[in-house]
């Protein structure tokens, strides 16, 4: 039962703005940047249902605004939001600029990175936003022309990702073995007898997030960070950047099947990740010698 005090307090809290609006940073109103965002959405979020919403349109507005959430002292990060009302999409972006003394790391993104893509329940009007318009045919042609354009990890980054992927797979399986939990794919030692193959999705120019499909174990590995993926700190502390999804167990057509649970992905999401990893992606074989030997094993 709500007490009147609770209600008043709660209403007040709900009415407080989450973050103040500010004029958008110039960088995120440039058409080049907005097209990069569209390229990312095309690859990771949009599908036929979205395209149908805009077929025949002559121009597409972007509502762009700056956002100023409550930040820690000395955090100079900048935030913004790009709403594409015709596609029913709101993209939150961030240009991080802060330090983590505990890790001895300065987090400074070279450009605004996508931190969230939200669907539905968008603002009804562009109040407080700068409206940037582009020709729909030009935007569509750009998305089409760049649909296979891909940049993959090379050199140091590739090496770090290989080491991390193998280390995370090993830790995942060893951890389950020690805890007495079943693994659909068997033990790590059994798995070592097979060739270990991962498929790496192309890197995004506007997101610090990437996916791998571990073919041998049939699992998706997601790396996401506030720090640019090229920064060695991401891989020195990859524990804080990795998530592993057992797609055989964690995929559903609709979240309605598992309402309220936070353990699942939809087949749409998994399908897109697999397309980007396997079809557009790059196949990489992992070598057990990539990772240091286990301490408590002979």
């Amino acid at each position, binding site marked *: 039962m*709500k007490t009147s005090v*609770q*209600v008043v307090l*709660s209403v007040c*809290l*709900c009415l407080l703005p*989450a973050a103040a609006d500010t004029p958008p940073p110039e960088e995120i109103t440039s058409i080049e940047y907005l097209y990069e965002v569209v390229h990312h959405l095309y690859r990771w*979020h949009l599908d036929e249902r979205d395209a149908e919403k805009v077929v025949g349109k002559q121009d597409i507005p972007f509502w762009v605004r700056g956002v100023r*959430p*409550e*930040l*820690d002292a000395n955090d100079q990060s900048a935030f913004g939001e790009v709403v594409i009302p015709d596609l029913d999409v*709101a993209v939150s972006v961030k240009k991080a600029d802060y330090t*983590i*003394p*505990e*890790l001895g*790391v300065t*987090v400074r993104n070279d450009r605004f990175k996508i*931190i*969230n*893509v*939200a*669907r*539905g*329940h968008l*603002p009804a009007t562009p109040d407080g936003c700068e409206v940037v318009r582009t020709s729909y045919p030009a935007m569509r042609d750009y998305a089409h022309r760049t649909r296979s354009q891909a940049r993959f990890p090379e050199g140091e980054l590739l090496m770090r990702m290989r080491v991390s992927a193998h280390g995370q797979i090993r*830790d*995942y399986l060893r*951890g*389950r073995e*020690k*805890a*007495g*939990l079943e693994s659909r794919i068997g033990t790590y030692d059994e798995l070592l007898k097979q060739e270990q193959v991962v498929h790496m999705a192309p890197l995004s120019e506007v997101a*610090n*997030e990437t996916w791998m499909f571990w073919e041998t174990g049939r699992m998706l590995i997601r790396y996401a*960070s*506030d720090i640019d993926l090229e920064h060695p*700190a991401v891989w020195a*502390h990859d*524990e*804080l*950047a990795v998530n*592993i999804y057992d797609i055989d*167990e964690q995929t559903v057509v*609709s*979240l*309605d*099947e*598992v*309402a*309220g*649970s*936070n*353990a*699942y*992905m*939809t087949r749409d*999401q998994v399908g897109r990740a697999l397309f980007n990893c396997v079809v557009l992606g790059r196949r990489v074989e992992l070598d057990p010698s990539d990772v240091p030997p286990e301490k408590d094993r002979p």
Partner: protein
Amino acid sequence: MNRRTQIALSIFLFSVSVRVACATPNVLLKPADTKSGFIAQLLTNEVPFPGEHGWVGEENTKSAMLQILWVCHGRIHHVPSGYDRKEVAVTTSGDIIDVITVGGEKGQCDGFYRDAHGHFKAVPRVQKRIDYLLKIANEGTPGRFARLLLHAQGLADAYVAEGIRGADRYAGLDQVHKVSVTGRAYSWMADKDCYNPGGSFVKIPNAHEGSLGGNRFFTLKERNP
């Protein structure tokens, strides 16, 4: 004992006590097999720390911890009119540990389950991340990592001792884009693009701070009793 020996002994004891004091960790979490230790694990696992995807700031992460606790609490104590506890929490139990672990390893709270003996557990990846966060928090001067871990443990301790502290920021929510809703959040998930969270859940939009600490929170459609 002569005076010189006394002084030497005092210096020795002082240096030992300084060493012991220095060795005291910044953060000690309760064991995971205690109720408050387990709740603290959940609150820590579900939110971003500095450098992680979804990180905004210390207050944002602390607020997300509180809202997650409110979801678990609300599933027991604030079941809205027209719903029953089983529908909202997938269990009729009034024990918060059951609310967290219901459905097993891939149940309502991913990775939190009861084993065959009924002991509440978290999967190894959860423990591994928390151990890593503790390691960072316990190196050098206490900073944000330490404060956030202590905050999670403090919320959990207080909850077990005397119930929930702090306001539920979604309690007064009654409409989301013309849909009447019950207020409060009853679910959360990692903030990723999805059309429909399932069931009678309604996404709390950004305008109502529905995205917090890297998570999206969901309320329920209002029903007539």
